[in-house]
């Protein structure tokens, strides 16, 4: 029973910390804010949204909603998914500021950009 209380207490503490940090992040642009996941859909042979602007540390998740396979492959080859079948996902965390243009190597006319900026 003691361990359960401890565990619950710790969870509460973590949750409280999260709220505090998130609030701090909102006011002080703190990089310590826990990275939120940002989602990009791959649908109708396009990345939606085609361009996103996110703070450093953001975790981006792409999901292929088409019946046709696609990839998420950076122009400079710094990251690349495998061929993604329907409902497959690809995840990438962007630690550094910069612009990360990418494309689908199966359909190179499909392009997108992740802009990573301190906010």
């Amino acid at each position, binding site marked *: 029973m003691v361990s359960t209380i401890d565990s619950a207490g710790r969870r509460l503490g973590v949750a409280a910390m999260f709220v505090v940090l998130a609030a701090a992040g909102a006011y002080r642009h703190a990089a310590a804010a826990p990275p939120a996941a940002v989602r990009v859909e791959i649908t*109708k*042979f396009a990345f939606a949204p085609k361009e996103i602007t996110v703070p450093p540390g953001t975790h981006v998740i792409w999901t292929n909603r088409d019946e*046709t*396979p696609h990839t998420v492959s950076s122009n400079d080859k710094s990251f690349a998914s495998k061929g993604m079948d329907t409902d497959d996902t690809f995840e990438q965390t962007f630690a550094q500021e910069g612009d990360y*243009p990418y494309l689908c*190597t*199966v359909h190179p*006319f499909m392009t997108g950009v992740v802009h990573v900026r301190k906010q």
Partner: protein
Amino acid sequence: MDSQESNRSRSAMTRRQALACLAQWSGAAVVWTVSGGVPRALGATGSNTPPAGTSDLTFVQISDTHIGFRKDANPDVVASLRSAIADIHALPQPPAFVVHTGDVSHLSKPEEFGRARELLGEIRVDRVHTIPGEHDTIDDGATGYLRYFDHDGKGKSWYSFDQSDVHFVGLNNVLNFKAGTLAALGDEQLDWLKNDLAGVPRSRPVVVLAHIPLWTVWEPWGWGTADSAQALALLRPFGSVTVLNGHIHQVLQKVEGNVALHTAMSLAYPLPTPGQAGIGEPGPVTVPAGELGKVLGTRQLRVAHGTGQLAMVDSPLVR
């Protein structure tokens, strides 16, 4: 349309004949003869099919089998391929070989390539010549594909061979892209093509296999090859050039002088027509039950010996 302009100026085909051909595509197979690179429609299968000379070369084109695909548009692509194989075995004159113009697999997976190789091995012909489509080069370029389909053992996905005084060239036009552009053949392959063609008499018919059309059918969907003009410039001096493409899962053709370009039906699923109302992307089209076999099919080609004349018959799996 360029092809109609070209037809009008270079052959006796009238607009009415051309429209009749278009009407026939939706039904039975259409027989074409290609003389000096200019196709003329002869009529539907079974009526005016040109007689086969015993020394003529005949071969079959299949395309876009997408082994591994199992969505609603075709839950059983293996059955579709086997149906095509049965059609090939039923041909009155056995083909010398079969060509497969790419997208052998759906996701470039080794098990898909392996399964495809087994299935293609069921065709009772000496050889099946394949070229890669963009679905065959997803993760590692042509490397995975070549583990199963390196036809001449040279580790390249392009090659050539001669048979019955016809020069065949297989190309890879699904790589060498830049972001936002069409895929391309690339300089290395264009150099190879130039050297390869340098040794071929210009009177010899040339048949070129390439997955994506070697003309720009519809750029917003990537239906074209960035450097196709350079390849066609190398082919133009030849008296009879026939380019066989896949990729767009429907029959289209274009004629430029002595060069006739033809796309083929798929054996997996149909794709929409560019500009089709309400469809903005080239995804698989699910047709009503019982209709699928009418939009999948094979193509038989016959080269009349010594003439360079080339006839082709597009046959849906279900007529």
